[in-house]
């Protein structure tokens, strides 16, 4: 029934299966469903979603996942926490490339003119290699603190947890990728972007020919 539909709080971009999860949880009479995923994936997904606008390195991405805040805001209402499988986020190679793009832009702001920057970065972000088992060389302290806070809140406020609770663990830092592998990944990224440009130019040419043929 409409009146019993829970309020869904999404805490990371690129959610996978949120409507289904919310529905399943909602049947168990939660008033608020806070949706999250593996902390590192949530952090990376947020970074990626913002990257085209901010162009900031991963180290400057706030570690606040928004989960604890959402749980606090729902205090006093029946709350469920749905932990969903992570969306595809950049691999360690993808992170290294985007991080370096951020470094280049910080050092040379004119490398990509400001009016075009968001569109250009979107083309890049969309093509970095992705994974659902992310690894980062440095896990920010804030991320671990938030996870610990979530765990405490769940226990003390009787929050029902649905889905893959074990995903809430903060992973141990992974070693930085082999620099040579980053070179190869960059070469592959350039191949992808160039391929897409060729397709776009072909489409444009075909459209122009069709327009000309139509008179």
């Amino acid at each position, binding site marked *: 029934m409409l009146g019993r539909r829970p309020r869904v709080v999404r805490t990371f971009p690129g959610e996978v299966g949120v409507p289904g999860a919310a529905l399943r949880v909602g049947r168990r009479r939660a008033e608020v469903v806070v949706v999250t995923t593996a902390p590192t994936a949530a952090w990376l997904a947020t970074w990626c979603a913002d990257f085209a606008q901010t162009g900031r390195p991963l180290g400057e991405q706030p570690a606040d996942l928004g989960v604890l805040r959402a749980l606090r805001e729902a205090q006093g209402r029946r709350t469920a926490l749905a932990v969903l499988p992570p969306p595809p986020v950049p691999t360690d190679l993808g992170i*290294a*490339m985007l991080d*370096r*793009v951020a470094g*280049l832009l910080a050092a040379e702001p004119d*490398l*990509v*003119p400001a009016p*075009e920057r968001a*569109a*250009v*970065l*979107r*083309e*890049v972000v*969309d093509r970095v290699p992705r994974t659902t088992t992310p690894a980062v060389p440095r896990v920010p302290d804030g991320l671990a603190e938030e996870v610990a806070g979530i765990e405490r809140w769940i226990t003390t406020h009787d929050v029902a947890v649905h889905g893959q609770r074990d995903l809430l663990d903060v992973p141990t830092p992974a070693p930085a990728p082999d*620099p*040579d592998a*980053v*070179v*190869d990944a*960059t*070469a*592959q*990224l*350039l*191949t992808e*972007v*160039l*391929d*897409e*440009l*060729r397709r*776009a*130019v072909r*489409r*444009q040419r075909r*459209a122009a020919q069709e327009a000309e043929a139509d008179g």
Partner: protein
Amino acid sequence: MAERVLIHIGQPKTGTTYLQTIAWAHRELLEERDRVRLPADRADHLWASLAVREDPRLASRSERAPGAYDRVLRGIEEWDGTAVVTHEFFGAATAEQAARFVDRIAADRVEVLVTAREPVGLTTAAWQESLKRGRTTPLRAFATEPSDDPTDVWSLRSIDLADVLDRWAPAVPEGHTHVLVLPRRRGAPDELWHRFAALVGIGADDIDVDVARGNPSMALADVEFLRRFHPYNNPRMDSLTARNRWVRRYLTEGHLAGRPGDRVGLHPDQVAAARERGRRALAALERHAVRVDGDPGDLLVPDDLPPQRTPDDVTPEELVDAGLRTVLAVAADLAGTRAADPGATGR
């Protein structure tokens, strides 16, 4: 039948494209005013070089390619002034192929012209050019061994001046071979054209040298990144035309060339080999009684060669930066193309 034919056979990376571009742009003026003809079409000279060198890939170049050799020869036969045949790939021909070509030319006098330069710069430039065409040979392995294959233009066959002269000079009478030496220190921007024009017999007036674009070199990290890029990109290039357009012209000349940074240097053993090639070139000039335009000393590697930085000295971080700068440049063009074509669904 032509009175005089000059076959300009290279070397690659000695301003050949620059000279050809100016000459072809003024083709009618050259014929009418100077009685200098460029027979057939520009592409015919490339294809004729493939025919002369019996390259089995000739027919796959274009349906017009197999007829190019005859068109060039006919253009010479039907002309009574000076004719110039020019392509830098002729230089890789065998002595027999060179002699056969000269024999087929209907002219009172056939001369061979080689534009040449100092061997370290020539070698690094030739390596870069080979990469622009999709090759992946590391610098360390480039032009280290003699090649017997006349289709192997990006090799010592083209860049070893003594070897080129030993194969081509005997095809024409003594004194009919010219070497135009590029100065180590560049002079006026159009100096090369004027020297070439004087040698051919082209007047100085009314020639717009600005029709030829510069062909700046690439920075070391950009070159090495390009080499690392090819194994991923080459399978996507479905034709020679696609590679020429998208890798050579668009990516390399459009985005990579001219960026700041260290230039390519040779490994110590390659520098030593280049020094030896320079000395052998001077001996070959004498041996073949070559008419030299310029300072033959400029064919020697200078004693005070600056420190050489090779691709082995480039860090992965430099390569990633070079690659990502290129990614951003191409992504900017992609975003611009999409913006200009809002109807396209894009991704």
